[in-house]
Structures are given as structure tokens and as C-alpha cells.
């Protein structure tokens, strides 16, 4: 059974700082997704990582995938308040079928 673990689950940081969220998964997969969720809202797709070594960047967020280590990271550079949200990673457990298995989510709070 595919398991997806994120850490940390809660992260409070100051504006301007850098930090990394980790996503580990238990079985072979080369499809990993990062989503953002604001309170009471839907899931917004941030990144789609489809191969080993994939790195994608959008603004202050950068995601990478190491399929051999079964690890993805979401790095936040010089955090700003509007990045406060819950971030989920998800792994496609059935190649291309989008039967996504989500991590528990990391609730990120960025303080001024």
C-alpha cells in the first residue's frame, strides 16, 4: 500500500526566511504533485513532477523529485505572508490514473 508522509506537519516561520518541506513515499512512482490549500478552499495545483531529478520553480517556491530516494522537497525562499497555507504532496499510485495518495499536509504560517 502506498504511503505518503510529509514533514513537518506544522511550520511557523518569519518572513524573509528559507525553509523546506519534505515528502517521502513508500513505493516506486515517478509522478508527484504539490498542491496548495487555503482555509476552506479547494486545492490549487502548484507543481507536477514527472521524472527523477525534476526541478520546478515558481516565484519563491521550488519543488524537486528524487525517485530513487522516494523523496520530494518543496523549498520556500524568502517567505512572505501570502504563502501562508497548507501544502500537500500527492503521489500517483496508479501510473497516470490520478488515483492520488496525499500526504497529511503541512500547515505553513508565515509571520511578519
Amino acid at each position, binding site marked *: 500500500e502506498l504511503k505518503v508522509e510529509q514533514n513537518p506537519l506544522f511550520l511557523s516561520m518569519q518572513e524573509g526566511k528559507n525553509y523546506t518541506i519534505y515528502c517521502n513515499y513508500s513505493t516506486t512512482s515517478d*509522478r508527484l*504533485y504539490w*498542491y496548495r490549500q487555503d482555509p476552506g*478552499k*479547494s*486545492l*490549487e*495545483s502548484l507543481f*507536477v513532477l*514527472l521524472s527523477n531529478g525534476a526541478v520546478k520553480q515558481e516565484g519563491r517556491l521550488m519543488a524537486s523529485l528524487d525517485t530513487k530516494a522516494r523523496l520530494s522537497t518543496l523549498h520556500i525562499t524568502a517567505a512572505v505572508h501570502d504563502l501562508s497555507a497548507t501544502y*500537500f504532496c*500527492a503521489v500517483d499510485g*496508479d501510473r*497516470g*490514473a*490520478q*488515483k*492520488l*495518495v*496525499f*500526504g*497529511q*499536509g503541512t500547515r505553513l504560517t508565515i509571520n511578519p
Partner: protein
Amino acid sequence: EPEVTQTPSHQVTQMGQEVILRCVPISNHLYFYWYRQILGQKVEFLVSFYNNEISEKSEIFDDQFSVERPDGSNFTLKIRSTKLEDSAMYFCASKKGHFNEKLFFGSGTQLSVL
């Protein structure tokens, strides 16, 4: 940008009642999904649907659940006899094609079973 729309945004029902959650996927999308998120927990896959039939379903999606695409635009999730533990946010999602990787989620229906 096109979006997946869900109605209602909130639904309150009594235990044992039937509910139908409605979704309008993006118009040229062919693959449809329901996920749910119990408050404070992770998002869970329920079912995927393609070509008018279920492709995959999870253990959560038991005989009390059904999905339907009654016309060319709507995609519904029915729960026949709701239980307290069905209380959750239900998300509909769609994508264009099998190899198109981006999954678009709707804004969700918050179901409360009393």
C-alpha cells in the same frame, strides 16, 4: 480560466438521508474524480470515472456511494443513506486526457451529517 464548479457549497442532512452532490467538470475534460477530506485530515481518493463507467474506486466507496454522468455536463456523487462519518468536504476533479497530468479541483461541497 475554466474551472470545475460544485453545488451546493454546503449541505446539511440527517443521518440516513440520501444526498446528491453535483459537479460540472471543465467542458472538454474526459476523466472525472471524487475526493474527500474529513476535517483536519488528508485528502482521500474515492472514485475515478471515464467513458461512462467507474475506472477505479477506493475501499471508502462502498455500496452506499454511486456516481453518474446524467448528461454531457454534470457529474454527480450520490450517498444513499448518509452516516455521521460521511461528514467531510467532497471535491470533484477533472482532467483532459489520460496523459494530461494536471488535475483541476472544484471548490468543494461541505457535507454535514447530523
